[in-house]
């Protein structure tokens, strides 16, 4: 089992190198990348916004309940903002991305493979890694931080909605404490995390699609592997990045 995992990791690393080598040439067809940003980003927007709102509202409820025990419910904004920016925004967006856009990428490329579309491209002297994989990979990387930012903003609004409108936290205290406590370092942490998660989720999705068995069962298995591997990888990377940022500060 460890040998198989190691082999897969090696194959994925080689694949990552091949895709990276095609990123610059693929920029020559910006239309392809814009289309993929739309597919991975805009089409995930509704689910990300809805999830962000509900997570923010839950954070507002639980945060208020905990903080009022210490008489510091005015700090609800700080708790929500830091929680959203540093962890919940990037991590939950990445998990949602893996489930919606990642599976879509894997099954799309897998079906193209099983219907000979990738072979047909090769026969037309067109490199599928450049025309199919690289734009989708880039689209995912660009879309992820934008989605994570949207998630965090909507989530913060959800927390404010519950804390201020329902629980009676002072609106001035909510926002001024947030403004004082959150600095650029916290925002950077969120951006770096979402970028790293974007690379990981997009790479896993395109790799699984490109390498899958060209059969209906093979595409199904590859799609499942995309969700499982991406989710585990996001949680692992989140721990490593959180530890790295804490050590740095």
């Amino acid at each position: 089992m460890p040998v198989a995992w190691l082999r897969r990791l090696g194959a994925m690393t080689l694949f990552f190198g091949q895709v990276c080598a095609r990123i610059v040439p693929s920029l020559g067809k910006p239309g392809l990348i814009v289309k993929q940003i739309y597919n991975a980003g805009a089409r995930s927007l509704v689910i990300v916004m809805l999830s962000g709102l509900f997570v923010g509202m839950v954070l507002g409820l639980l945060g208020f309940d905990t903080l009022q025990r210490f008489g510091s419910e005015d700090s609800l904004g700080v708790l929500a903002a830091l929680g959203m920016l540093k962890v919940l925004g990037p991590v939950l967006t990445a998990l949602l991305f893996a489930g919606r856009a990642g599976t879509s990428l894997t099954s799309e490329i897998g079906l193209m493979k099983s219907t000979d579309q990738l072979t047909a491209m090769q026969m037309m002297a067109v490199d599928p890694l450049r025309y199919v994989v690289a734009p989708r990979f880039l689209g995912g990387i660009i879309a992820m931080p934008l989605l994570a930012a949207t998630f965090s903003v909507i989530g913060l609004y959800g927390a404010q909605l519950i804390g201020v409108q329902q629980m009676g936290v002072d609106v001035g205290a909510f926002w001024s404490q947030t403004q004082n406590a959150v600095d650029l370092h916290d925002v950077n942490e969120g951006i770096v995390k979402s970028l790293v998660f974007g690379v990981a989720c997009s790479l896993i999705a395109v790799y699984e699609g490109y390498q899958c068995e060209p059969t209906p069962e093979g595409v199904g298995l590859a799609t499942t592997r995309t969700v499982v591997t991406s989710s585990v990888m996001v949680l692992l990377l989140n721990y490593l990045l959180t530890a790295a940022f804490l050590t740095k500060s």
Partner: protein
Amino acid sequence: MRYAVGGRAIFDGLNVTARKGRITAFMGPSGTGKTTLLRLITGQSVAERGSVKVWGREVSTMSTRELFALRQRMGMLFQNGALLTDEDVYENVAFPVRAHTKLPESLIRQLVLTKLHAVGLRGAARMTPAELSGGMQRRVALARAIVMDPDILIYDEPFVGLDPISMGVICRLIKQMNEALGITSIVVSHDVQELSTIAHDSFLLSGGKVVASGTPQELHGSDLAEVKQFMGGLADGPVPFHYPAPDYYSQLLETAS
């Protein structure tokens, strides 16, 4: 040439030549490796022993760049069409032109419409592959295969699953491409009747070798048992109908007990 998969020889001692400007047909029962032969010619697979040459150049030793340059002079019609499902008919045909040239849109439009007209589907330019029948998809794929004016056209089972009208249209198109443009055509199929009307040279493959070759008429007149069985569509002959299995009755009884 020898080619094997997992130790099982698909071809062993195969020696064939497709001549320039002619239609060469490779026939044979299912599973004889006809599509594999096309993969070897186009450099998608590499022979274990021997050589595969196109225009006198060894395919297996070509770099990716050389292979892509070779493929730009080739067109291939896939068994299932292999059209890009997220693009419409027009964009499918325009795809290789956009990928390899910087022609202005007006010229691409003329090129695409000319090729679509040749296959009778100019009116379907804005339809998606999902809206087309199998025969129409095959014709769009043919338009895409010829849009770059290739020197060699390769057809993988072009008649499979087609109604008689579509089959006749594809047959006529293959012949027209060859006669009007002088394109060298390689057709892989097991439709004996259709191939007989268009092929200049034929090879009958079985057991990894060429069992007979010549014009379709010569093959029809052959006395070889394998050729007779294939050309006549007979179940009994050197090519067994049944895959090797234990005794029929004893196996049935065994299952029942």
